[in-house]
């Protein structure tokens, strides 16, 4: 991207969590692209941004709507063509009235002029690409937030063309692939609803089983079902909910309560420690198959080393399990699995192992002559007309108060991945970021008598966690940030399990906490008077 | 006149040239460049000893440039077995001569100690600043071998009798106004060296130390049945300039000095310790009568403003017949180190000024010299805060808050004042007896001979 283009990122600390894409954004910026950063924290990209909107956590929807409103009011929308290719345009535009810049400024703590600057930036750019990650989704309003991004993209015509689009950056290796493959409670492969009889029928035919016709449970629903004794067994693989899920104390209670817990992982994670049976999975370097990248590119991978010890690739473990459950051996290798999948999934039918030898292919790819789809919604939206959804603002489920006066938001750092079960076992990564550093604004630090490097305690309605304070202006006053990488500083002890009503995604980005200093160790008696060090310059 | 060795001096072998002493010298008498050993301009020095208190350049056992410590001790007249810490700025030590006086069986020894001593000497024995120990001080002096333990405060009461009378006389005649107090030797010395054209304003009264000394060797000798030369008169003072004052030629009668030797608080404490006398564990004792009985008014001489307050208590009683424990006059701070009040005494308006710290006096003296003085009576104390802050007081360690310590010593003198049965000088029965039996009346003939003097003429140099 370059001059005339615009990159708008929201709720993504891209240089830390997606460094390769982050580097690309830095490059785009150097090439002349405009950069808009929407984030409560002064992340590295905020420094590079042409417009940085430091919003109060949880006000994404009104802020994005206000930007849309400003663009619309300034006459920067091609009304005719947008109206022609979308539905709900009129209602949407009418709904924008309640998100005027001034009242949203008061709500989001972003100056009205900055909202207008962002609007001008997007409105005038030839192309604007929107990027987001969990900063947008991990709210009780996560669905609305994503829709607000989508509304804005539709309004400005930034869809279906190069250098545009609504681009969620996936958080984990192959998280895209596993979602594509239906590792979600409500869909089968290719995002086809389990309630659709035809879709379900094709699987039932292929597998010769009956598939439940209702949606499955989201994670919070599963935990509730366990508590209500409606669910007796749980099979967890490649997940560490004892660190990654909100309100760990509650999670732990449920995992103790469930009758039978199986955990399949590379290492004995905090979750695996609670399991009745632990199945040793193989790592990415020990298995064959495909990974799908964040741009929907299905890529062939091959084992570089043999699985260590008793560990096995996930598909093999599952296949053996099926066999012992009385289902005969059906798969000889990964190709068999893949072929079955692609035959049952129209978006992947055209992707074969043979074709993948030549390089990755982006789905949808309906037949073997199809080249794949680098850009979605070209010409028109896949669903037909682009759909505007009018939105309302809803405050987060928990806000700071007198008892818990600070807002905690969580995320990741560059050195670690998720609950760090792998990265903390890596010498270099563990060395360069060995412990939790809780970002605290200097004014808050001063108020609570906390110095840089002090051990502090964070307390919420759900629990207590400790970490070392990093006194920095990266966070605004009133906000503290911590990661969920460090087992001994589990941020998710503190977070709330309140979740988005549609997706069940928990509100990990906002909860109310109180902090206090733990260490008494003398910290910073050192004075600035020592700056000269003339004593060290004795010839 | 000349004295055998300088009262206050800086040892070039120990001085590192930090010039911290120059910061506290009220008369800019410390000469030298940074990092070079300093010296004292004896023409200006008033011997207040503030430099001694401030100096932290001690003889470190690990500094190879300070080689011959025994030689330094010898030069300072310290005994060979003395182990006290040597500092660059120091005062003349008279412990040796006092010891020999005490050993002299032909003489009867009389000691006086200044008010501020009893509020500070306990510091030398590990107690907090401002711990009040008058009874233990009297006991300790007796243990040390003094035959009669008298008190400077008694003489302070006499000073009030004389000085108050002198003031009333001057107010009556209108001559030599404004009048300045003369009890502080540093201040007197300053007048002599820098304002010798204004000396007539000084009260002709000797200081309490010298009045006491003169009375020891006259009235006191009579009571003891001795000749003046058979008396060893020793003063314990919070002040280094007092050593100078005791040596002044006008402070003697027929070549017999009023005061034979002056010890500072630190010297006395050292002598006590070397004799194994633990001041703080002694039972309290009384000072000897009659020259050791004192009033609250005399006690507060040790703090700035005390002379003024004491004089006012007596002046109010004498002129109005109304006996008061406290004058009730409030002085208002008008500038740094200067407080003022206007008092109605016998139908006359007296404008009084209190100066705390010599450096603040110059401006007022300029006015006096120009005939523009807007006051009638001025108390000046050379050391900021008064004698409680004197150069002979315990030398506080660097981490101790000096101002706080001075304030505590001050407060303890006021506490002492309040606790005493007699709080005005003229009601001190020993003072009444002195006038009845010996002096007849203030400013009388005997008073004039013994208790008054003329400053300036023979003002001796420092060396």
């Amino acid at each position: 991207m370059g001059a005339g283009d615009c990159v708008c990122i929201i709720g993504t600390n891209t240089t830390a969590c997606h460094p390769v894409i982050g580097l690309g954004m830095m490059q785009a910026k150097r090439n002349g692209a405009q950069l808009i950063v929407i984030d409560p924290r002064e992340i590295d990209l905020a420094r590079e941004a042409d417009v940085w909107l430091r919003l109060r956590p949880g006000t994404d929807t009104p802020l994005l709507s206000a930007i849309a409103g400003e663009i619309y009011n300034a006459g920067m929308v091609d009304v005719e063509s947008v109206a022609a290719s979308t539905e709900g345009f009129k209602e949407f535009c009418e709904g924008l009235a309640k998100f005027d810049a001034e009242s949203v400024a008061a709500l989001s703590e972003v100056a009205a002029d900055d909202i207008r600057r962002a609007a001008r930036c997007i409105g005038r750019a030839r192309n604007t690409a929107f990027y987001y990650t969990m900063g947008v989704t991990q709210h009780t309003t996560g669905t609305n937030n994503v829709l607000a991004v989508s509304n804005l993209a539709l309004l400005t015509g930034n869809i279906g063309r190069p250098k545009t689009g609504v681009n969620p950056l996936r958080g984990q290796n192959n998280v895209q692939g596993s979602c594509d493959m239906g590792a979600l409670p409500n869909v089968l492969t290719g995002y086809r609803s389990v309630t659709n009889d035809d879709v379900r029928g094709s699987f039932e035919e292929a597998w010769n089983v009956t598939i439940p016709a209702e949606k499955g449970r989201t994670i919070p629903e599963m935990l509730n079902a366990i508590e209500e004794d409606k669910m007796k067994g749980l099979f967890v693989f490649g997940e560490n909910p004892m660190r990654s899920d909100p309100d760990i104390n509650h999670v732990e209670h449920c995992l103790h309560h469930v009758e039978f817990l199986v955990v399949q992982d590379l290492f004995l994670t905090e979750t695996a420690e609670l399991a009745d049976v632990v199945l040793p999975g193989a790592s990415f370097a020990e298995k064959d198959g495909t990974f799908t990248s964040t741009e929907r590119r299905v890529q062939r991978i091959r084992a570089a080393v043999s699985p260590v010890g008793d560990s096995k690739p996930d598909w093999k473990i599952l296949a053996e399990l099926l066999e012992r459950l009385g289902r005969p051996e059906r798969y000889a290798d990964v190709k068999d699995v893949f072929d079955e999948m692609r035959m049952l999934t129209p978006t992947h039918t055209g992707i074969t192992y043979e074709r993948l030898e030549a390089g990755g292919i982006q789905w949808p790819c309906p037949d073997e002559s199809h080249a794949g789809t680098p850009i979605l919604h070209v010409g028109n939206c896949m669903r037909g007309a682009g759909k505007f959804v009018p939105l309302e603002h809803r405050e987060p489920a928990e806000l700071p108060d007198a008892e818990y006066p600070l807002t905690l938001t969580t995320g990741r750092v560059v050195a670690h991945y998720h609950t760090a079960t792998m990265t903390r076992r890596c010498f270099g990564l563990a060395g360069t970021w060995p412990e939790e550093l809780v970002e605290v604004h200097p004014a808050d630090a001063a108020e609570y008598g906390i110095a840089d490097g002090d051990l502090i305690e964070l307390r919420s309605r759900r629990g207590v966690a400790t970490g070392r304070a990093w006194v920095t202006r990266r966070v605004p006053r009133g906000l503290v940030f911590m990661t969920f990488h460090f087992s001994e500083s589990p941020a998710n002890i503190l977070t709330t399990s309140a979740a988005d009503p549609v997706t069940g995604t928990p509100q990990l980005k906002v909860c109310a906490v109180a902090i206090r200093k733990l260490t008494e160790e003398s910290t910073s008696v050192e004075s600035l008077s020592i700056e000269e060090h003339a004593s060290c310059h004795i010839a | 006149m000349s004295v055998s060795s300088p009262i206050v001096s800086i040892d070039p072998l120990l001085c590192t040239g930090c010039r911290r002493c120059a910061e506290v010298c009220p008369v800019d008498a410390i000469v030298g460049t940074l990092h070079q050993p300093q010296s004292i301009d004896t023409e200006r020095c008033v011997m207040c000893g503030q430099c001694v208190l401030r100096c932290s350049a001690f003889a470190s056992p690990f500094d190879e440039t300070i080689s011959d410590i025994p030689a330094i001790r010898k030069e300072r007249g310290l005994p060979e077995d003395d182990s006290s810490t040597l500092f660059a700025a120091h005062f003349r030590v008279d412990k040796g001569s006092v010891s020999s006086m005490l050993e002299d069986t032909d003489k009867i020894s009389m000691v006086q100690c200044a008010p501020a001593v009893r509020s500070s000497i306990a510091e030398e024995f590990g107690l907090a600043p401002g711990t009040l120990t008058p009874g233990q001080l009297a006991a300790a002096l007796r243990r040390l071998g003094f035959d009669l333990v008298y008190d400077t405060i008694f003489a302070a009461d006499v000073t009030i009798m004389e000085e108050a009378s002198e003031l009333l006389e001057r107010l009556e005649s209108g001559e030599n106004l404004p009048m300045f107090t003369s009890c502080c030797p540093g201040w007197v010395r300053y007048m002599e060296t820098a304002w010798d054209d204004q000396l007539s304003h000084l009260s002709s009264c000797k200081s309490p130390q010298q009045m006491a000394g003169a009375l020891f060797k006259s009235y006191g000798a009579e009571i003891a049945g001795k000749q003046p030369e058979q008396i060893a008169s020793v003063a314990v003072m919070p002040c280094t300039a007092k050593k100078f004052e005791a040596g002044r030629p006008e402070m003697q009668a027929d070549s017999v000095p009023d005061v034979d030797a002056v010890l500072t608080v630190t010297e006395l404490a050292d002598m006590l310790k070397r004799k194994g006398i633990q001041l703080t564990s002694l039972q309290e004792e009384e000072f000897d009568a009659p020259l050791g009985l004192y009033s609250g008014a005399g006690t507060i001489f040790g703090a700035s403003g005390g002379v003024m307050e004491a004089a006012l208590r007596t002046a109010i009683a004498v002129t109005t017949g109304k006996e008061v424990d406290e004058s009730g006059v409030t002085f208002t701070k008008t500038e740094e180190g200067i407080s003022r009040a206007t008092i109605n005494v016998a139908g006359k308006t007296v404008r009084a000024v209190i100066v705390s710290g010599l450096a603040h006096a110059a401006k007022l003296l300029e006015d006096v010299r120009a005939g523009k003085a807007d006051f009638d009576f001025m108390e000046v104390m050379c050391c900021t805060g008064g004698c409680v802050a004197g150069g002979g007081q315990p030398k506080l360690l660097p981490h101790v808050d000096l101002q706080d310590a001075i304030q505590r010593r001050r407060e303890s003198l006021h506490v002492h004042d309040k606790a005493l049965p007699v709080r005005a000088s003229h009601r001190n029965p020993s003072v009444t007896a002195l006038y009845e039996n010996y002096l007849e009346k203030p400013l009388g003939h005997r008073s004039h001979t013994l208790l008054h003097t003329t400053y300036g003429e023979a003002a001796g140099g420092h060396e």
Partner: protein
Amino acid sequence: MHPFVLSDPSRCIGCRACEIACVDAHMDEDMVEAGNKELPFSPRISIVHEAEVTAPVQCRQCEEAPCVAACPAGAVVSEGDTVRVETERCCGCKACMAACPVGAMQVAVIPGKIKTPVAHKCDLCTGREKGPACVEVCPAGALRVFGREDLQRIPVSKRRQSASQLAGYN
């Protein structure tokens, strides 16, 4: 003049690859094994990651190095292309740390024979074929060695640029 490594904060994304590469370059052990052996992680380059700036900082190989002047043991020496620590002579007095104006000196345990904290600092990966490891690894191109030639060329080219600007201005 000594060459030195300088970072460009406008490019750095704070990924810390430089720190890791630095440790790797100064360690005989394989990175995979290092963790198992619980070796110390002591980079000679420090990432500053603040709201205001993100950039690695390391030794400038000063010409009149304060660390050399401050060392009571003669363990920091200016020699050849670098300012170098003779770790065997270091007693860990930390005077060099206090003296260094950019905070480039580290006193910590390094992998190797010496088990106590010693001073160590950027040695420009002297002896490493591909030059400083941090420069090689940086994905953002934020690190660069400035050698003698650069130090001669840069001021000259800037003067030229400045002169032509002035010419245009007049």
